[in-house]
């Protein structure tokens, strides 16, 4: 099956909602596992990588949770397909760059994704909308337990699951969340918050993980330590921090509206103005403005617009998503024109922002 036919549209996947999804975009739990007796992918020779793929892929495909899954070798995917998977946050940029002996198994609603021969033989992840770390952990824990009956994992009683990088050894778990924190950024509190979160042994990264910018005010928070702590301890600690971050962001929004409402509406109005009227716009500017549009939706400035519109455009205005449907490779300039055309078209249905928004149905506003 072609990946293009398999992947549901961004709009379809964004229909699902989850707790706190006003601020918390997604929850993800990833486990790293390796097979006993085969070198880790980065050090293995191609035949060894192929062997690992041949052992792992059928085992993953045979799991009931993966019924109807897309399963392929990275070789079979075009570079455009891979880029699209990165833009959909389904695979890492590193995995997209791999070829011989690497593979991917993806379930139909994209909530489970197994990368084969990434940095480790197996990188499996469960994705959920909003704040649902526990549900994501349960899903991936089950998948892992089913898989361990079919595969012989490299495991040591002392050090737990053995991984290519010592930073992942032990539980091999990475619990992460994507948050949209525009008010903390506008209120210039974000650096303080990042420092505080770092102090708790958690990493704060940009949109596409390690070493990337926090485009569009989207931040990724995840655990760093994997050894000497149980999976649930790691998860609960992160959960607590996320609940606080959500609260801080809500408070910052309230405070901004109270003290600097004009500043906020100015940002939202200008973002709308540019997005709805530009004839050429870069991906970076788009993301930053869509973040403000989304904030506007959250604050009630666009009463008839669904929050997912901003999120969907966030994805569909990325380079590979724009390139889709074109045979010839588009230049960055061409993409900027195309992106602007698409945004003007989509924002045609979105009326001008109402500022200040009509009194929301807050209990205090009766």
């Amino acid at each position, binding site marked *: 099956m072609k990946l293009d036919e398999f992947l549901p549209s961004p709009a379809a996947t964004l229909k699902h909602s989850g707790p706190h999804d006003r601020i918390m975009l997604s929850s993800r739990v990833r486990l790293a596992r390796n097979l006993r007796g085969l070198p880790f992918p980065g050090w293995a020779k191609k035949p060894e990588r192929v062997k690992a793929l041949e052992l792992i892929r059928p085992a993953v495909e045979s799991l009931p949770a993966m019924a109807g899954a897309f399963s392929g070798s990275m070789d079979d995917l075009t570079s455009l397909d891979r880029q699209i998977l990165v833009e959909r946050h389904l695979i890492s940029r590193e995995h997209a760059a791999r070829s011989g002996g690497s593979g991917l198994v993806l379930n139909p609603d994209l909530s489970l994704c197994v990368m084969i021969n990434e940095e480790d033989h197996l990188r499996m992840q469960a994705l959920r909308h909003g704040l649902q770390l526990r549900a994501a952990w349960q899903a991936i824990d089950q998948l892992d337990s089913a898989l361990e009956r079919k595969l012989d994992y490299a495991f*040591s009683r002392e050090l737990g699951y053995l991984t290519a*990088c010592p930073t992942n050894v032990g539980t091999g778990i990475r619990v992460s969340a994507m948050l949209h924190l525009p008010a903390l950024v506008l209120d210039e509190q974000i650096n303080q918050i990042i420092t505080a979160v770092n102090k708790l042994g958690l990493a704060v990264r940009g949109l596409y993980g390690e070493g990337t910018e926090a485009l569009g005010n989207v931040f990724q928070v995840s655990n760093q330590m994997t050894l000497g702590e149980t999976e649930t301890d790691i998860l609960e600690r992160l959960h607590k921090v996320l609940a606080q971050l959500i609260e801080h962001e809500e408070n910052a929004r309230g405070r901004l509206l109270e003290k600097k409402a004009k500043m906020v509406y100015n940002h939202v109005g200008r973002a709308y103005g540019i997005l709805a009227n530009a004839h050429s716009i870069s991906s970076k500017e788009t993301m930053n403005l869509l973040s403000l549009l989304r904030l506007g939706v959250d604050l009630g400035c666009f009463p008839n617009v669904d929050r997912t519109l901003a999120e969907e455009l966030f994805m569909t205005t990325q380079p590979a998503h724009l390139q889709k449907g074109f045979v010839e490779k588009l230049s960055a300039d061409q993409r900027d024109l195309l992106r602007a055309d698409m945004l003007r078209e989509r924002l045609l249905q979105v009326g001008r922002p109402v500022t200040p928004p009509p009194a929301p149905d807050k209990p205090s506003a009766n």
Partner: protein
Amino acid sequence: MLCDICKKNVAKVHLTQMDKGETKKIDLCEECAKVKGIDDPTSFSLADLLLGLGAAQEMEQGAAGAGLRCPACGFTQAEFKKTGRLGCADCYRTFAEGLEGLLKSMHKGTRHVGKAPQAQHFSPDLEGQLKALQRSLEKAVADEDFEQAAVLRDQIKRLREPSREPSAP
């Protein structure tokens, strides 16, 4: 500002590292930076970048030093320094000595306490574990590393009290 290593020359290379929220700064003179291989960013040890400054050196201070080679997969210390990754599961045993300090500095503990594969979850070799821990404890006391000794003492205590074994989730 003087170089942190030789304390003689003026520091011209300034490195900043974030470690558990703390910012560590290292200032080096050009010569010391060259000796450490930091003058040329392309040769700057990725292991150091990924795992914290000094990671590669810490590994090298392990018993057999830089020449150590994994018997299972042929991976060497030098490779680790270059990539910050290990070659195979057995590397953890081969390079155990060098890894110990590294794991201690980057993780909450040095013993796995989470999920274990059911098939491999046979009754733990309690006796063996206790002996190994006891040995490490004696070594820690001899080295006057009392912080580590306290951690080990608690681990031994936990192992001896079956009621406090973490139950399966």
